[in-house]
């Protein structure tokens, strides 16, 4: 016999969990990365040549890879000290002194992290009280704004302009000074523009930070990749080491992105605060990467210099090629990106990048992935291997001639 129907059957809706509603508001409201959208699309396509990569196109130097293999053979598979292997911290201290002229105590002023990414996250979480503002030049590296939001801070992008080679101007920074600003996040040489802060400007910026009592978070991951003048760390200016956390790592100059190794150097109390976060969230950076890191810092200088020279040539090549095709473009002083303007072609960054991808099978990153002031630009990396760069330039030239016959023909312009 059928059981009698439950009197309330049909009235109660089955419980369907609404995943979204569990997500914290500040996370839910975080926009999806502009790069991810583009990445998903590129993934579905075949035969792409990419100028969209944000890492070295060449593999890690062999001596460093070999050291990682050897460490594995020796059975180095455990945790390390939270703050990193003592040998590595000493090597970092020597390296940073060579690079910036500033000496950091390996015991108290250096923290080894999983890339600059984690170091930056720890620093933001360590210094930001809810609602405090963090300033940075925009267009900026994609993680800055979300990183600040995730630390419950308020990101304040200071727009920079193409006409000004995307330089952060001290006067414009000074205008942002108000109670509630906690720190300036500096990136020189910069992703995505390749711009370096000029020496005189750096001094003025340092003056503002001292006057306003701001912390400086200085992301110097491209410090070794400079093509005109050597890098100058803001921490090396008088009175600045005390208020600056410098970030660096092995990803770019040593071509070790996948090793995920970086570090922060700064005043002991700030590093100690970061260690509190790092020890509970990450415990330590992977030991194999740390072992390889010692080799990189102690025996990698010649390879880094050789790679720098190759980047410089590839920069010349891509800059000359894009300029000849009619793109207004600065020759970047550092990092491995060109950030050409697409103003002459009457398309938005996204439209341009999409058409270039679909019609010419060349991937670039639309400038808007780096903030609203990136509109009207593309990020083109010159780190891919030479054959790939040539192929990309060939495709781009043919496509430009077809799509913008007047503007991209140098003969027609002159």
């Amino acid at each position, binding site marked *: 016999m059928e059981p009698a129907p439950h009197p309330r059957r049909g009235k109660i809706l089955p419980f369907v969990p609404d995943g979204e509603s569990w997500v914290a508001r500040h996370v839910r409201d975080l926009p999806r*990365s502009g*790069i991810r959208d*583009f*990445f998903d699309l*590129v*993934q579905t396509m075949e035969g*792409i040549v*990419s100028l*969209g*990569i*944000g*890492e070295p*196109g*060449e*593999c890690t130097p062999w001596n460093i890879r070999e050291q990682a293999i050897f460490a594995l053979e020796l059975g180095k598979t455990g945790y390390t000290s939270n703050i990193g292997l003592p040998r590595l911290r000493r090597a970092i201290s020597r390296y940073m002194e060579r690079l910036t002229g500033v000496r950091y105590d390996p015991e108290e002023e250096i923290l080894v992290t999983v890339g600059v990414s984690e170091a930056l996250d720890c620093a933001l979480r360590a210094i930001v009280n809810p609602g405090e503002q963090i300033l940075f030049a925009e267009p900026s*590296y*994609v*993680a800055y704004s979300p990183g600040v939001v995730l630390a419950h801070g308020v990101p304040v992008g200071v727009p920079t302009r193409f006409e000004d080679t995307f330089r952060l101007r001290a006067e414009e920074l000074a205008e942002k000074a108000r109670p509630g600003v906690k720190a300036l996040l500096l990136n020189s040489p910069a*992703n995505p523009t390749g711009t370096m802060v000029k020496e005189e400007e750096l001094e003025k910026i340092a003056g503002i930070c001292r006057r306003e009592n701001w912390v400086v978070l200085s992301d110097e991951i491209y410090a070794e990749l400079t093509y005109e003048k*050597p890098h100058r760390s803001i921490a090396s200016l008088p009175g600045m080491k005390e208020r600056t956390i410098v970030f660096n790592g092995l990803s770019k100059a040593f071509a070790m*992105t996948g090793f995920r190794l970086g570090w922060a150097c700064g005043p002991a109390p700030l590093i100690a605060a970061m260690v509190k976060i790092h020890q509970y969230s990450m415990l330590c950076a992977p030991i194999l990467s740390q072992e390889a890191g010692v080799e990189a810092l102690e025996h990698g200088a010649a390879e880094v*210099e050789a790679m*720098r*020279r190759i980047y410089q*040539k*590839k920069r*010349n*090549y891509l800059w*000359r*090629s894009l300029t000849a095709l009619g793109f207004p473009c600065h020759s970047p002083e550092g990092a491995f990106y060109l950030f050409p303007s697409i103003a002459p072609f009457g398309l938005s960054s996204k439209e341009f990048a999409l058409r270039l991808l679909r019609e010419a099978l060349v*991937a670039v*990153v639309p400038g808007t992935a780096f903030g609203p002031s990136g509109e009207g630009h593309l990020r083109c990396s010159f780190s*891919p*291997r*030479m054959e790939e760069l*040539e192929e990309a330039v060939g495709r781009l030239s043919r496509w430009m001639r077809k799509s913008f016959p007047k503007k991209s023909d140098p003969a027609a312009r002159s």
Partner: protein
Amino acid sequence: MSKEPSFSAELLHLLEENSLRSPELLGKLLDREPSEVEQEIARLEKEKVILAYKAIVDDEKAQRRTVKAVIEVKLVPERGGGFDRLARRIARYPEVTSCFLMSGGYDLLVFLEGSTLQEVALFVSEKLATLRGVTSTATHFMLRTYKQQGVLVGDAAETDRLPISP
């Protein structure tokens, strides 16, 4: 940053990597005009700094059955000329692909190519070993190539980057 290498040093380096690079491309890489590059290459060729342009071939893929050997050769040095006259004479044989004067237990290292084992063996015993001034030879046959002239042979490409990354 250490001292920048000269224009011709950089040019040679780029051509050694790939000698098919055009003057236009080389000009862009080195921030020079193509005509400057052409002139410099012409000078390097004329002065025999650049000796030749060649292709590096994977013999296995090209299905070549050539036999390659290295031979350690000991010589009696000659009054006045040292090893030069004899070394140059040995280098002239078309079977010899490279020839170097060495320090250590022997004097010349000779690279040979032939179509069969016998051919190479015969060359060593009949031509090389019988030269006046050659006191001994030790022949080693090459079995497989893993790297030649700076190029890895038979390995897959080393990097596999995501097409888009931050």
